């Protein structure tokens, strides 16, 4: 009868080459953005994270007020939204259009009343305003290029420092904020500037790999940190809550912890090499966790007391999740639009409000030779539990599900397809059927065993033992028989009103659900080859995915209209709706457990996987 959210596997921050990413942290939570979504990630238990998807344009930075009650998030259009973080419904406090371009950074004052937002505007690069009303509290001026970062001294007298692409830092007095002086220490882009929590100092870092320390009240340069191990652009810095040390992250793949008193590096961590390991953002969570962001999206967590490598690494999708497939009753895989595949593990235990340090629920990047481009489908082999993935790099790859403590990984074997693969299915005898733009190919042990070029344009495929359903752009579903050597067409089913976009057989093989581009789901009897009902037509856009419960009584459909509907075979007029199950469009839906209450996972364009508990109609 109803559904309720039980948790979310959040996406990781989106990264762009050469751009510093602004992370921030409050206690054990890290706040960042991915696409239009603002994510408040709980470092200890990802399922307790929250997401905010009300931005119309891509969000760029989000920071929680010192009071902890509000979050300010900004987007590429120059809009700042201030919203409530305490209540469930994330009430909007105010929406302010502050500059006419991308906002790169924003900062709260110590009283949680004022905000300065900076970026790349047309007539000005920054704006200082009251959080409640949006009225101006000064002027941010003195820069000739886009401003990259801003920081406000949290004690009175208020000061603000802004760092820009014109290689200068401007020191403002406040309030109201007004220009005081320009600091010309750096020789290249200044990437970040941060005030110490005590207000005594602030630090600036830049693309010239230099670090400078300034007096917090006057803005005078105290010194340059010359014992500097960084050789590349320093992208971010953040302070320890006790103001005695700070950390810098650099594009030369290193993270360095500095002692302010004697101006020496305490420790330096090296994270491999190559573009993927460039460090582009950081934040200091609690008293001891340092979070540094890799270009690949991985959040590396360092403990200052521990030596040469991250204490742990949080990996999660950066791009839209395009397909999901189950591994066992606790683990499932998700393929993304950038070709990576992740495994998600959930203990399915009821979530407690108190966070624990047990890491039962996590997402992990699947190692091995993966896809280099868009993963267009995943399918499980019911016999050996291996999973087959297809991608726009025109290859079929095999993922070993692993056993026990072994994590799933790509096997080295792969086969190339004749044209771009669209959909994949595995038959009962373990043959992998790949539906491509021009043909259908069958693979067994990475060898092509069959190829067929149909007369119609095909769009989706599903298989149950030897029965194979192929959907076409002609709004028809063709039932085929697979005898181990070839496909033979046995029936044509009609009942859809658009291009067939998703097909799923019920686990008992008796029923077939077919979703189309008009949002209709048709239910067919496979044996009688008859349309049972087309009443499942509540979606208003393309059906992207269908999933059956293990008892074959309920079917869930995920659609581009962002909603998920759960249909009942016994009562076709009844349905359960999960509105906005995946902001931006739901790409995939998967039942994890059909017990009572049943558990459902949905994923979509925002790269997050959301978990739900569903109670069926009595």
């Amino acid at each position, binding site marked *: 009868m109803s559904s309720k959210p039980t948790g979310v596997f959040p996406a990781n921050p989106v990264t762009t080459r050469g751009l510093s990413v602004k992370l921030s942290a409050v206690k054990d939570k890290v706040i960042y953005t991915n696409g239009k979504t603002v994510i408040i990630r709980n470092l200890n238990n990802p399922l307790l994270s929250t997401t905010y998807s009300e931005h119309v344009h891509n969000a760029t930075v989000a920071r929680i007020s010192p009071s902890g009650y509000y979050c300010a998030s900004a987007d590429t259009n120059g809009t700042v939204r201030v919203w409530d973080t305490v209540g469930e419904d994330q009430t909007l406090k105010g929406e302010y259009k502050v500059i006419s371009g991308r906002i790169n950074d924003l900062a709260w004052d110590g009283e949680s009343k004022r905000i300065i937002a900076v970026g790349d505007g047309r007539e000005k690069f920054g704006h200082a305003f009251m959080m409640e009303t949006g009225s101006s509290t000064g002027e941010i001026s003195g820069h000739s290029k886009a401003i990259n970062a801003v920081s406000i001294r949290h004690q009175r007298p208020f000061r603000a420092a802004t760092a820009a692409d014109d290689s200068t830092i401007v020191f403002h007095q406040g309030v109201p904020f007004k220009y005081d002086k320009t600091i010309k220490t750096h020789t290249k882009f200044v990437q970040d500037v941060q005030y110490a929590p005590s207000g005594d100092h602030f630090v600036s870092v830049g693309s010239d790999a230099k670090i400078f320390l300034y007096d917090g009240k006057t803005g005078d340069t105290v010194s340059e940190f010359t014992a500097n191990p960084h050789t590349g652009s320093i992208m971010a810095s953040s302070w320890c809550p006790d103001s005695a040390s700070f950390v810098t992250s650099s594009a030369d793949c290193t993270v360095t912890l500095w002692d302010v008193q004697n101006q020496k590096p305490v420790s330096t961590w090296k994270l491999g090499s190559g573009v993927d390991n460039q460090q582009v953002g950081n934040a200091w969570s609690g008293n001891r966790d340092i979070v540094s962001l890799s270009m690949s999206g991985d959040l590396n967590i360092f403990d200052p007391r521990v030596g040469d490598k991250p204490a742990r690494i949080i990996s999660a999708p950066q791009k839209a999740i395009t397909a999901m497939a189950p591994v066992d009753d606790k683990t499932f895989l998700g393929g993304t639009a950038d070709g990576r595949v992740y495994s998600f593990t959930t203990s399915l235990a009821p979530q407690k409000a108190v966070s624990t340090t047990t890491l039962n629920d996590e997402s992990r990047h699947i190692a091995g030779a993966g896809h280099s481009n868009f993963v267009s489908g995943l399918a499980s082999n019911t016999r050996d539990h291996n999973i087959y993935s297809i991608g726009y790099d025109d290859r079929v790859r095999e993922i070993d599900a692993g056993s026990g403590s072994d994590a799933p990984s790509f096997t080295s074997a792969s086969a190339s397809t004749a044209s771009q693969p669209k959909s994949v299915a595995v038959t009962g005898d373990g043959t992998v059927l790949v539906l491509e733009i021009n043909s259908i190919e069958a693979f067994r042990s990475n060898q092509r065993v069959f190829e067929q070029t149909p007369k119609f344009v095909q769009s989706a495929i599903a298989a149950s033992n030897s029965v194979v359903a192929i959907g076409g752009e002609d709004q028809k579903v063709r039932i085929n028989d697979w005898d181990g050597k070839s496909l033979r067409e046995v029936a044509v089913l009609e009942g859809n*009103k658009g291009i067939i976009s998703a097909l799923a057989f019920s686990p008992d093989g008796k029923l077939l659900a077919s979703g189309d581009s*008009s949002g*209709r789901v048709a239910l067919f009897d496979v044996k009688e080859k008859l349309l049972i*009902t*087309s*009443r499942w*037509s*509540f979606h*208003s856009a393309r059906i992207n995915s269908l999933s059956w419960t293990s008892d074959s009584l309920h079917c869930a459909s995920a659609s581009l209209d962002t909603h998920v509907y759960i249909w009942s075979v016994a*009562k076709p*007029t*009844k349905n359960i709706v999960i509105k906005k199950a995946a902001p931006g469009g739901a790409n995939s839906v998967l039942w994890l457990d059909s017990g009572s209450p049943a558990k459902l996972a949905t994923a979509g364009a925002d790269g997050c996987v959301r978990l739900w508990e569903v109670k069926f109609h009595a």
Partner: protein
Amino acid sequence: MASGVGVNDMCLNEYQALKLKKAHKYIIFSLNKELTEIVVEKTSSSQSYDDFIADLPETECRWAVYDFEFEKEEGGKRNKIIFVSWSPDGAKIKQKMLFASSKDALRRALVGVAVEIQGTDYSEVAYESVLDKASRGH
């Protein structure tokens, strides 16, 4: 454009029975075989809204009158008579044309209809969307 289709007297009698005597919960109207007259196809006193939805065929047009009972948010029961023009996407175009042009003949004969609903798929005649329309305003 009117199609020239007439309304059978039974339609009005059954409607009066629904409206005044509360003898029925809903009435389904259709055209007769010769497509010359609107006739009563079914009357029912089932209290289940799902039964009503189940009586709307997947690929054929119908009209229906339903005695819709609901509770206001601030309490208090209301009854409203709703008129449904059921014209599903899957129906034949000719039938949809004929039903659309004949609707007025029936609709004008029925006095006291509070809400009119145009349904082309099941989401538009679902209980929630009808309730939303019925509870708007009054």
